[in-house]
């Protein structure tokens, strides 16, 4: 089984780097972007299996990025990370699942794996 490709978008340099290391250890292939615009261009050019998105970012925030992603690929699993406990309703409707920053790597990995499995039968993620 080939490694699922995860796109991580976060404006926090160090946090993004650490998150990449965690996910790579868990067997994912990780692409990173520091803002919504560069994240979307990677999403358009690369085969992405899931997106891990930070909510609070300068420029386009996570909610806006998620809405565009959803438009382009309606079934794309999107995990929204946030330091805020509660995210706005409209954001929650767009994303597949959300996690709070500080919940720990284990929760992140579990949620991501769960997302990929749920999506496997549609024949996109599961083939790898």
């Amino acid at each position, binding site marked *: 089984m080939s490694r699922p490709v995860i796109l991580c978008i976060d404006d926090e340099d*160090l946090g993004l780097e650490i998150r990449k290391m965690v996910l790579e250890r868990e067997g994912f292939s990780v692409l990173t972007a520091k803002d919504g615009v560069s994240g979307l261009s990677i999403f358009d050019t690369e085969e992405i299996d899931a997106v891990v998105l930070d909510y609070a*970012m300068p420029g386009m925030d996570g909610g806006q990025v998620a809405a565009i992603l959803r438009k382009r690929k309606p079934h794309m699993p999107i995990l929204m990370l946030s330091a*805020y406990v509660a995210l706005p309703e409209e954001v929650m409707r767009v994303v597949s699942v959300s996690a*709070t920053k500080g*919940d720990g790597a284990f929760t992140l990995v579990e949620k991501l794996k769960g997302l990929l499995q749920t999506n496997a039968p549609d024949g996109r993620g599961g083939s790898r």
Partner: protein
Amino acid sequence: MNLHQFRQILVTTVLLPLVLLLLLALVLAWQFQRTLREQRRIDHTDRITALLNELERLVVDQETGLRGYQLTHDPTTLEPYQNAEGALHGTLDRLLYLVRDDPDQFMRLRQIRDSHEQWMGFAGKALDNLRAGKIFGDTALDLNGGQLMATLRTRIGAMTQIEVKRRDEEVESTNSQVRTLMAILILSSIGTGIVLGIYTQRNMRKVSGAFRASLEEAHERADELIESRQWLQTTLESVGDALIACNHQRRVELMNPVAQHLTGWTLEDAKGRRLETVFRTIDEETREEVKNLGSWADPKDPAATNHSLLLSKDGTEYLIDQSAAPIRDAKGEVAGVVLVFRDVTDLRRRDEALMAHEKLAVAGRLSASIAHEIHNPLDSVANLHYLMANETDAVLLQRYLAMAQQELNRTLQISRAMLGLYREPKAPVEVDLRELLESVLLLLDRQLKDQSIAIDRRLGDGVSVQGFPGELRQVFTNLITNAGEASGRGGRVQILVESSFPADSRPGALVTITDSGPGIEEAHQAKLFKPFFTTKGEQGTGLGLWVSRGIVEKHGGIIELTNSTDPIFPGAAVRVYLPALGPAAAMAGAGNYRGQQPLSQA
């Protein structure tokens, strides 16, 4: 009726009877004169009549003497004739003199004289005959003599008759004049009496009317005075401010109940005492007794509205706001001083509570973005912990540890900056404005990033002032947040820190924060620093700028908000000048700052 009219009435009341009596006297004198003249004429007539009688008697004497001599031939019998002849000429002369002004009588008298001379001619012939010895008389001659005598006596009688008649007329005229005089006297007396009576009564009525009117007016004035005193009394008792009125010697004359309550002195005890005894105040900062109350009367004196502590008689202290105004008399001289003050202790407490509340609100509003800022490094640390748990490679472990330390340091920095908003040293400390603004920006970082606001930092090195860092953080948090919100998503904010020498050339720092927002509406300009004024609706408390100004002024500084002229940052520009000396400068002479030229022109 005024005093002049009253005097006029008095004068005429005295003068009119005098004038009337004088007129009466003149009329009487005139009448008296006339009566006197008439009397003289009667006397004149009487004298003429008497002389005519005398004349007749002398004529008769002559005739009698002549006849006696004719009968007796005794020369002694001729004596009356001779005597009368001598007197007769004198009498005739006197009569002629008396009637010289009356031509008729004068003529008659001359006829009498002529008749007498004719008779004397007869008498002379008769005597000559007798002396010649003719014993028997010449009958024709005697007859002629008798006729002459008869004519003479008839003439004398006629003249006498005329005089007697004239006398009667004159007496009648005199009597009539006396009657007229009496009538005039009685009538004019009655007339004068009536005129005087009516006039005096009228004037008396006028005077008594005027007196009654002025009495009523005096009553009315007295009522008005009582009423206005009542008004004043009620007003003074109902106003919420304390009020003390002093005379020109600064001795207490009046105190309203609020003043009595605050000073602890009853009006009864305070009346007549020196103002300084009743109204004892100390400076809020230095706690030194304020001795010079004199300057309060000068409204230009800034001390006139300064806050000070009022020491009540029972030792209670009240923070008061005071003002004083001189009372001037009709000539414009200072007759006393009115001192108005109010207890602002509660107001001050409210302000303090509001400021404390706003301080917490600033932190509260930041809490969400601060939580985010703390959650980010915490998330990294949690992830590193996960990596380290299953890692055996020492090099990797070392790397993870270093990363974890870095993230923890960041958390510490943020929590320190957060604490800096609360923790405050007791006395002012040296504050590096660059450091201070950096820490403020750290707290605001997330908030600004979320709004994609680009910050142009121009933080000069080594610019420091004495001050309270927590309070100054609060000021700049407010101002930068405002600038960010005004600029909106994607906006720009410039923060400039530089050394400055404002209008009074005292060294200090100038922090200028300029945004790219729409600027300040003219209608809002005057209200910007008022408490509870906000343009942010539900999002703002309207306390940010009010608190900021309070803090800046406490530091002896000035805060000013204008529209920017910079084309890159065309919105609002807020300038904060802080003197290097800090709050000490504020105490030394805050008054010097007020009313100075604006910073923008400095």
